[in-house]
């Protein structure tokens, strides 16, 4: 075997198409659930539909036993009946949760927990008690049977039924989204404004839950409940890390969902070989595509978390490191300036060791700061080690001016002990630009000395 592509067949294509359609259909309502902070609703809905599925199944069996339904009729009605049964319990779960919250004044997540665990327990009980009348495997509901989609096709077209169902669901969701886009957006971001504009926010919320329930059920039959939960949350969450606009988040979620489906199936094909290698077993068995899709969606989310250009961890680290570097450089300039001010008669500058000791930083950090400053032409080698250039001196004067103005301002307006003034100003000086300097100076009536008696350097018109 050389990779999953080598024995890719028609069945794999259909599996990926089914999974992608289901995932894309889920991603649309999932985005709104995520924005409304109701992500766990997907989890709840997928658990809560179990009794509906079982009851519908039992009802069909009862009809067949009573002779009202032929065997072929049973086969024909099976899917619609399961769909309706699951949709009813799904909506019931949503409505009950809402009512518990309102009438019992319960916390949303607690209300959700109460409703869906009860529904799920009821479903399990029904499964067990009626096991000899209807063969339903609860595991099947969990894992789905994505691998079997191709066995159930519509007529002679060769298109699997699951593909048609999920495509229809995706189309319905897309149309509803386009038609009610404005209302949904408004209800999601500013419910009170929506209400005051006369948009029935509560009804739209219920409709969203109903649509989510229907989508979940449609996807359920083919991909199982875990995948449904994953697809409702993970692609939208990934997209939300990458973008700030609702439209692009929605599009992004759909794209991520499709990528997840493909990646999940490839992983399902590739992973057994890996595990066999690790555990030194020799069997060729498969892992669940649905399970692997959940894993891939999680991986994509992790990737977005790390590498997102605006909110990613890497970006945060970079920004923080950058800021730290700038602060250190400015501190170096400040120290050099103060040394010149303190001992105008001695050779200017300072050596690396004493600088590192004064600023208490690691030598390599200092080295990086110094080389950056030298490159910019703000300091140059000379004097006792490094010394300020003329440009550097101007900038340093601006910094020291910020520092001392801030100290004076604090001393005038706040009750701060004198020792603390320096510390506070040390933090603030990096963020006080020329305009703030001017405002501070005017407020303090152009002071000449700071509270410690040091001279405040005069303003320079081209600082920084």
């Amino acid at each position, binding site marked *: 075997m050389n990779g999953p592509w080598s024995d890719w067949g028609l069945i794999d294509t259909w599996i990926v198409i089914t999974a992608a359609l289901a995932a894309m259909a889920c991603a649309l309502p999932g985005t709104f659930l*995520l924005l409304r*902070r*109701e*992500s*766990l609703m997907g*989890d709840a809905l997928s658990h809560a539909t179990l009794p509906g599925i079982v009851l519908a199944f039992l009802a069909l069996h009862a009809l067949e036993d009573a002779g009202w339904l032929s065997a072929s009729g049973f086969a024909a009605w099976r899917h619609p009946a399961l769909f309706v049964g699951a949709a009813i319990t799904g909506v019931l779960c949503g409505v009950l949760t809402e009512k518990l919250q309102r*009438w*019992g004044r*319960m*916390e949303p*997540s*607690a*209300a*959700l*927990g*109460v409703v869906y*665990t*009860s529904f*799920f*327990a*009821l479903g*399990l*009980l029904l499964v*067990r*008690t009626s*096991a000899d009348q209807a063969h339903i495997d609860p*595991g099947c509901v*969990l*894992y789905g049977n994505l691998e079997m989609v191709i066995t159930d096709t519509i007529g002679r077209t060769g298109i699997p039924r699951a593909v048609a169902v999920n495509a229809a669901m995706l189309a319905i969701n897309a149309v509803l989204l386009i038609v009610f886009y404005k209302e949904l957006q408004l209800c999601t971001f500013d419910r009170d404004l929506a209400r005051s504009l006369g948009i029935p926010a509560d009804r739209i919320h219920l409709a969203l839950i109903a649509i989510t329930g229907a989508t979940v059920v449609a996807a359920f039959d083919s991909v*199982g409940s*875990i*995948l449904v*939960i*994953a697809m*409702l*949350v*993970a692609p939208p*969450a990934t997209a*939300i*890390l990458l973008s700030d606009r609702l439209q692009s988040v929605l599009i992004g979620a759909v794209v991520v969902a499709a990528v997840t489906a493909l990646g999940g199936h490839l992983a399902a094909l590739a*992973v057994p070989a890996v*595990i066999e290698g690790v*555990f*030194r*077993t020799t*069997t060729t*068995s*498969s*892992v*669940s595509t*649905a*399970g*692997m*899709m*959940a*894993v891939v*969606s*999680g991986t994509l*989310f992790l990737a977005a978390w790390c590498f997102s250009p605006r*909110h990613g961890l890497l970006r945060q680290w970079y920004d923080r490191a950058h800021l730290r570097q700038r602060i250190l450089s400015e501190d170096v300039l400040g120290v050099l300036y103060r040394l010149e001010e303190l001992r105008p008669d001695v050779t200017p500058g300072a050596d690396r060791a004493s600088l590192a000791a004064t600023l208490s930083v690691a030598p390599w950090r200092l080295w990086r700061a110094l080389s950056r400053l030298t490159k910019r032409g703000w300091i140059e080698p000379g004097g006792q080690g490094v010394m300020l250039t003329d440009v550097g001196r101007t900038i340093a004067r601006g910094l020291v001016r910020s520092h001392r103005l801030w100290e004076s301002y604090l001393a005038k307006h706040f009750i701060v002990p004198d020792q603390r003034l320096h510390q506070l100003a040390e933090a603030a000086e990096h963020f006080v630009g020329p305009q703030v300097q001017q405002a501070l100076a005017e407020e303090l009536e152009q002071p000449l000395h700071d509270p410690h008696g040091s001279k405040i350097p005069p303003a320079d018109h081209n600082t920084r």
Partner: protein
Amino acid sequence: MSPFESLSLLAVTEWARVFLLRDYNTRIVLCGTVLLGIAGGVIGALMLLRKRALVADVASHAALPGIGAAYLLMESYRPDSGRWVPGLLLGATISAALGLLFAQGMGRIRRIKEDAALAITLSLFFGVGIALLTWIQALPTGHAAGLSEFLFGKAAALLARDITSIAVAGGIAVGVVVLLRKEFCLLCFDSEYALASGWPVHGLDVLLTALVIMMTVVGMQSVGLLLIVALMVLPPTAARFWTDRFEPLLWLSGTIGGASAAGGVILSALVPKFAAGAVIVLSGSLLFALSFLFGTRRGVWWRYRGTAATQRQIALDDLLRACYEILEPYLHSPDALTEHPIAQSELLQKGRWSLARLQPLLRLAERSDLLRRDFQDRWRLTATGRRAAIQAARNHRLWELYLIHYADIPLVGADRSADAFEHSLRPEILEQLETMLETQSPRLTVPSNPHAPHDPKLSATATEVRP
């Protein structure tokens, strides 16, 4: 034979056998699950108050990959040792803890809210778990039967050593809560104050989470990892409807948890094919439903009764006022209010009620001794009814006058606005209204109707009615 038939066919001896715990197996299972129910209820109450009710759900789902991985590891170490329970539970604990850490780490992203973090963790870990489990199922050595018990539970087949582990874990959990109940109380109600006054809030949270993981992992075998969260959500939410106090809530929640576990086990022992795990949860749901309806603190039934009583009073007030208005033209004769009959058609003409609503209302008034039936559909006010009618009309008119004089409400709107308010007028407000409107006459005086055509005799002084 359906379970219900078997229920009805059970001999008395069978019931006695179950209820008297003659059966060793039932005894064992009952002990274990009741302990689990109590501990789950107590811990769950803390989680509910900390607003993290569903963390247990995430912990239990996140435990699945640990079980699968532990099985694979043990199998690869020594074949046929894969179902060694302590090893599997250790794996479950580690991966549940990893899952919650993962969720917590994700909570630090400002864009991802807590619910999304939990949902993502749940689906990701559970997905990995299912992938592992399906893979193990296909192995020639791996009979996943042993592992899928963790999914759906096997309460009916608990062994004595399972009970020991449940008892130890439950004892530890309850013991810790008893010892640290004050600290937990502070944590649940004002964590910021606790932090500010130097309590190790973070440590307490970690401890609580550790207890949740412990209970989840231990309880998984009895009710299954899909339903273990129910043991921590249903009892405290049910208990919340009975009490507003912290410690009673904890113990009540534990009691409800124990009771639902006992009920579930007994029911499943009586009825074949009733899976214990599901029945335990359902009896918890039943207790919740009862508390939700009849709980003394926030029960829906009591609140509904209160509202219904108010609505009845309002309807009666309206009816009596209508009677007064109908009788108003005859007030010059002394006993008009009690002597003059009121036809049902006259009341209908008011346009306030349909026939279907008027008739029960009239019967209600008759029962309350406010009206009495003259003959067929003619009614008369009783002595109590007379007083109440005068009072109702008076409240309405006073409020209406106030609105017209002081709130600049036009004459047409005054009637409707007064309708909304008059029923909630309390005596002291009425008194104030009287003073403001300078109607100095004794209490049972009805101001004239501002809507009536100007009649100098009526509007000059308020209509005097002898009490």
